[in-house]
């Protein structure tokens, strides 16, 4: 047990760090912290584009990719080292993650060499932004219950239907999409996977207003949208197999809930309560902070164990499923604690950054417990994949998709 890099790792870290120091600013310090305050979307996209391009030019954008697509053929542990170092710098985030994390691997595995040469470099360079189009109004936890239709028409496919929860659809150039080409066969067999030009005629994008007031997700309507068969990824009927790897990537990638954590609760509790005593003197508050600290620390150390496995070349298991369950629920509890600590005044929206972060936590956590796999789905995954418990009986097993009970 030690937390030191190997010699090789340490050299790699120094290289990352050197480049980052030249090209970005360390977090903290003077007013760089974007914790509070919204940035104009247009400006933010421009700054994200610029940063992505800079990284691409230096090879960092998709460092594990082959060199001819702009990568460095880096190892898993090197990716993590890069990620650790980059996270210490104040750089724009949130625009490219889905495209690079989900569309990237699928294109790499299923697209033709010609398509890869055409699409991968601009994806990595941030010149083209990608989104994913999986969820539908009647297909949430049960993604494979999707109903959007693809009908073959000569060398094209014609897509009709509705997708939801598409992050960034309104500024994306391309999307990966899974649709149903045959409702008359078993549900998982009737799907096919494509990539689609988001500027195609017939695509209508509408923002979804969330309970936080934000609208980072969209509904995407497809009305007779035409996709050439050459944009099919995988065989006809292989859509689920292609999608499932992508989904696992998503569910594993959905990490720690951002926002107030044990540390913030601890710092907040240094403030005074109604009797002029620091809240931290209250033994109930102390117990809560101890619990949150143990959870936060447990997640951090679980990540270190995962990295240890990666560092040795092992493949980590589905343990990462616990991160979101634990951190989203912790966030909800901490948000609630922060608000309640203000007593009657806790209801007020104020300019105070801490109060603001507790309000955000309390509202946002309600969504985090759902997005990218609900608490319930993730616990199923743990029970079935980690503990080996048997599946729930499947009411949809062996039925043609059109015959599966849907309540309608």
């Amino acid at each position: 047990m030690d937390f030191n890099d190997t010699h090789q790792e340490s050299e790699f870290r120094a290289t990352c760090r050197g480049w980052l120091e030249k090209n970005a600013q360390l977090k903290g310090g003077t007013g760089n912290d974007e914790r509070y305050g919204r940035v104009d979307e247009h400006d933010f996209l421009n700054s994200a584009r610029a940063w992505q391009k800079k990284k691409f030019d230096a090879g960092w954008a998709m460092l594990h990719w082959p060199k001819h697509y702009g990568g460095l053929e880096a190892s898993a542990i090197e990716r993590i080292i890069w990620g650790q170092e980059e996270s210490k710098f104040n750089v724009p985030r949130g625009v490219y993650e889905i495209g690079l994390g989900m569309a990237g691997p699928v294109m790499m595995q299923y697209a033709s060499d010609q398509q890869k040469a055409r699409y991968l470099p601009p994806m990595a360079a941030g010149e083209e932004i990608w989104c994913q189009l999986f969820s539908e109004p009647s297909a949430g936890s049960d993604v494979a219950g999707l109903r959007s239709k693809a009908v073959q028409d000569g060398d094209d496919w014609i897509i009709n239907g509705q997708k939801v929860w598409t992050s960034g659809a309104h500024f994306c150039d391309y999307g990966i999409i899974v649709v149903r080409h045959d409702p008359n066969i078993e549900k998982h067999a009737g799907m096919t996977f494509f990539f689609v030009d988001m500027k195609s005629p017939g695509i209508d994008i509408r923002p979804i207003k969330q309970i936080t007031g934000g609208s980072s997700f969209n509904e995407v309507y497809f009305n007779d949208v035409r996709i050439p068969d050459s944009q099919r990824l995988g065989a006809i009927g292989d859509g689920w197999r292609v999608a499932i790897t992508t989904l696992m990537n998503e569910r594993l990638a959905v990490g720690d809930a951002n926002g107030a954590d044990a540390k913030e609760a601890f710092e907040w509790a240094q403030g005074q309560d109604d009797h002029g005593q620091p809240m931290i003197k209250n033994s109930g508050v102390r117990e809560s902070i101890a619990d949150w600290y143990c959870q936060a620390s447990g997640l951090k150390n679980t990540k270190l164990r995962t990295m240890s496995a990666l560092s040795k070349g092992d493949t980590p298991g589905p343990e990462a499923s616990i991160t979101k369950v634990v951190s989203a629920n912790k966030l909800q509890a901490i948000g609630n604690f922060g608000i309640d600590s203000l007593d009657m005044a806790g209801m007020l929206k104020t300019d105070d950054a801490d109060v603001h972060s507790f309000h955000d936590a309390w509202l946002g956590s309600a969504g985090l417990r759902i997005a990218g796999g609900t608490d319930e789905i993730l616990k199923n995954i743990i029970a079935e994949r980690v503990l080996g418990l048997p599946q729930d009986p499947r009411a949809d097993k062996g039925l043609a998709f059109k015959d599966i009970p849907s309540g309608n």
Partner: protein
Amino acid sequence: MNLDFSDDQKFLQSEARKFLEKEQSIQKSRSVLDTKQQYDKDLWAKVLEMGWTGIRIPELYEGLGLGHLELCVIAEELGRSLAPVPFSSSVYLFTEAIIKFADEQIKSEILPKLISGECVGTLAITEQLFAPTENNIKVSVDNNQITGTKIAVPDASVATHVLVICKSELGSDLRLVDLTNNNCEVHDQDTIDNSRGHSLIEFNNANSQLVGDAGGGWALLQNILNQAAVLFSFEQIGGAQATLDMASEYAKQRFAFGRAIGSYQAIKHKLADMYIGLTLAKSNTYYAAWALLNDSTELEVAAATARVSSTEAFQFCSKENIQTHGGNGFTWEYDCHLFYRRSKLLSLNIGSLAAWKEKLVSGLERSNLNSSQ
């Protein structure tokens, strides 16, 4: 043995529910939230027509002279329908305090107008980002004139009168201020639930009248809050019941993997837990209603018990109602978040959960002391 409402009270409740459904109270609440209108004028006018503001006001002052139980059943329906009207401030807090503590002159002047809506009252307590205590309030009175700032005052933008707890020579006073004709400035404040209006009030040597004993304001305030806790608990169990109903309905209709999500034990047991919390809260709140009706010595503990369990039940139910709705529950379009917001507002408006747990245990300590003497 009867821990239940009478048939007349149940009829009143059922009529209230029908009225609020017909008036689309929940949609109106959404509209107030979207537009930050502070309250819904139309619904408020109709509530006044229904005569609910006069339920507890003695007939001498043109009211219906009924007991608290009639108010309890109305409160449950207002909670269930998220009614965006200044009812709780004007009735549970202000009217009740005037009936109980004001002198004859104030009563005869104000009570009839509270029924008609010509007057609307509220109560101003908090000043800072922590719990108010008798020692930390700074708004003060000198020669009947009040100076200082109160925050998070409910419905202040529509209120004509406000009862203010303030520091006075002899301790603390509860004082009545006419907001329409005075040195007061009212500024609306954003809250976590903008479907109910809240404001900051600046008092600049505002004229005031003493209500109740000089110097004994803090004890009066506790008395008012204990009574109001029972009524707010009814709003909370109404809200909790509404979210449990929503979640059950959705769980029956929403299918995943070929069957209703309500057939999965994760959802079943979640909803069973909601039901358990709600049932305990409802029973405690009924008992507190009995204590309120009889002005029982048990009121303090019974009110705190009702408040704590209803606060927990509504918060839990509204939170897990979102979860049951999955992605839809997190959209602005579905009503789930309206209840989630309201549950938080109601958990804070007369003091936090922690503060009421503390009241409960303090109450147990006092009754323990009494019984052991």
